[in-house]
């Protein structure tokens, strides 16, 4: 039975969906439940990773240190993971602190074509003896060959795996198959996949990834995550079991963890809304949904139009300020019309 490592970013990607307002009680209880289920990796932090809490991206209720220490207290066998994006997270202020808090797995993310910026963070984490993955976000925005080239950079910096993030939920299963196969052929390290469900394909895409050689798959409780959410964790575990892949996770217990998340953390169970679909079609980061909806209603424009215009401009996370610019222009055109 081939083993697939499941990484659970419920308390990180899910943070987007509740405006980064996770409490210590939620982190503590969810981590205890995930630990109980045998979850290999539990990721914790602000939706955009450690060090990203800010006015522009949304401020976390808790400090990074509080979140990590709370999680660490409950995760004994499960590894504690973080997502960091160089630029938001600095080595001295954030990464060093996170490692001191006992983080085991560090996932260093960047835009799909910008792997160069991850060199120092990956190297530092390796020097501190931690497990490090490179994460190529918005991977639909780069051609497969480019993804391989960027992944090779991360491998050369010392990354122990490269994760392709379908941040906009824009991939179809064949897109995933093509990219994961290419990376699996061209790299000497493990390959992983992080799905979003904008087009309702998160589970199908995760299966395509594993069947093409991916060995690390992300999933969140009830699919809790930015926009339309992620691959639903408990479904992933069940499906992989059915497909004869071993996850080492207790199905009933991961279902219990998901029940807890639904009752105590989720404000709304993620589903594929119209804006999620257009976000997937336009190839815009799922995490924009909350801001787009708010701005659309403020300016009286259709959020779907905002998404398509943002997609045309090829915006990436961190460019949330462009939402207002686009809405203003659309509102202006509407007034003229």
């Amino acid at each position: 039975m081939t083993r697939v490592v499941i990484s659970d970013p419920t308390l990180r990607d899910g943070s987007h969906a509740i405006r980064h307002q996770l409490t210590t009680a939620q982190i503590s209880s969810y981590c205890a439940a995930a630990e109980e289920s045998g979850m290999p990796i539990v990721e914790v932090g602000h939706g955009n990773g450690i060090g990203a809490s800010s006015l522009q991206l949304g401020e976390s209720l808790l400090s990074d240190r509080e979140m990590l220490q709370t999680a660490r207290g409950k995760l004994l066998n499960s590894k504690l993971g973080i997502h960091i994006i160089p630029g938001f997270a600095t080595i001295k202020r954030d990464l060093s602190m996170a490692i001191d808090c006992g983080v085991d797995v560090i996932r260093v993310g960047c835009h799909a074509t910008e792997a160069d910026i991850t060199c120092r963070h990956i190297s530092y984490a390796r020097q501190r003896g931690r497990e490090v993955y490179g994460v190529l976000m918005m991977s639909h925005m780069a051609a497969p060959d480019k993804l391989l080239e960027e992944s090779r950079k991360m491998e050369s910096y010392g990354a122990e795996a490269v994760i392709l993030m379908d941040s906009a939920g824009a991939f179809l299963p064949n897109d995933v198959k093509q990219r994961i196969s290419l990376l699996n052929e061209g790299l000497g390290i493990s390959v992983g996949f992080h799905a979003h469900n904008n087009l309702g394909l998160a589970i199908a895409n995760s299966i395509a990834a594993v069947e093409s050689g991916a060995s690390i798959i992300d999933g969140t409780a009830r699919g809790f995550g930015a926009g339309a959410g992620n691959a639903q964790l408990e479904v992933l575990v069940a499906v992989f079991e059915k497909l004869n892949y071993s996850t080492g996770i207790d199905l009933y217990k991961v279902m219990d963890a998901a029940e807890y998340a639904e009752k105590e953390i989720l404000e709304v169970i993620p589903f594929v809304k119209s804006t999620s679909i257009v976000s997937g079609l336009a190839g815009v980061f799922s995490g924009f949904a909350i801001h787009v909806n708010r701005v659309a209603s403020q300016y009286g424009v259709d959020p779907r139009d905002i998404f398509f215009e943002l997609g045309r401009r090829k915006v990436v996370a961190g460019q949330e300020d462009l939402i207002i610019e686009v809405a203003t222009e659309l509102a202006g055109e509407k007034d003229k019309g």
Partner: protein
Amino acid sequence: MNANLLEMIHRDCHEVTAASLPTLAPLKGECLLITGGTGFMGTWLAELIAFLNDTYNFNSKILLLSDRAYSFSAKAPHLAVRKDISLIDRDICSIVGIPSEVSLIIHAAATPDSRLHASEPLRVAQVITNGTASLLASASRLPRLKRFLNISSGLIYGPQPLDLERIEESFCGGPNCSSPSSTYAEAKRYAELLCSIYRNEYKMEIITARPFAFIGPYQLLDRPWAINNFIRDGLTGGPIRILGDRETLRSYMYPSDMAFWLLAMLLHGVPGFSYNLGNPNGVTLGQIAEKVANCCPVRPEISANLAENAKIHRSSLVPDVSLAQKTLGLKLLVDTDEAVRRTMLWNRAQVSNC
């Protein structure tokens, strides 16, 4: 640098020269320019020549050219203050004139750090190609130049076929020239070609060394190579994590052997010849991890990080050094086990020195 560390280096230099001193005799009274002089190779060459000067009155002079010359006093303060060593703080690409007293040159400027190859391929290519061109042009005008050793790379052969136990100098492989990840190797190939042209047109006595992998004192443990990471992990209590396929084959030469071989190639190599430089005895990553773990006071756990679903990427990089051994009479004095043991000792002593 504490006395313990200096004593280790001194012992290594003594060991490597004890039985073969006559090989290095032509170095006496010469002035040697080393580019990349403050790097791993340059520092070891300086250590060995300084030892020869102190112990056997070689009276050789060393010029270390580097764009990081300012950092040498922190790295090797005992060398930086010596009267027989001068530092030239200059970028190799902008070199115009070389002191006329220089009679021997070892051209080692270039970083083998693969992280830099990936992030700054243009800069890497320029340092190797433009730097070599500038140096050769300047060297061709030197009145007393006797010999020039160009440090190339074992990577110029491209991927080693898995059924080939060791790569000979005549192996006609080659990296993928259209991939940015081949920058370092392709630039080194071009540098070799430039050397051949200068040898042909200017009748310069140019020899090429193609180094493989090394482990020993002065090698930084933050470099992204397996054995460095294993040692670092081992020294910090582990676990030692093997990235990729544990059957991947590498070989490691100890730096006192490396420095001796380099000088022997410079002094006795046949102009126009290229010599592999390294340890011909391959070890798998799994074996290396075991060797490192065995040298730790408390044996750390060894884990393999390659998931079962990942494609196996086995590779080999092991030189055939019989050309250097047979024609230059070179021997390997420090085997892999001993190299690992000494490197661990050095790094532990360095930590206690901090």
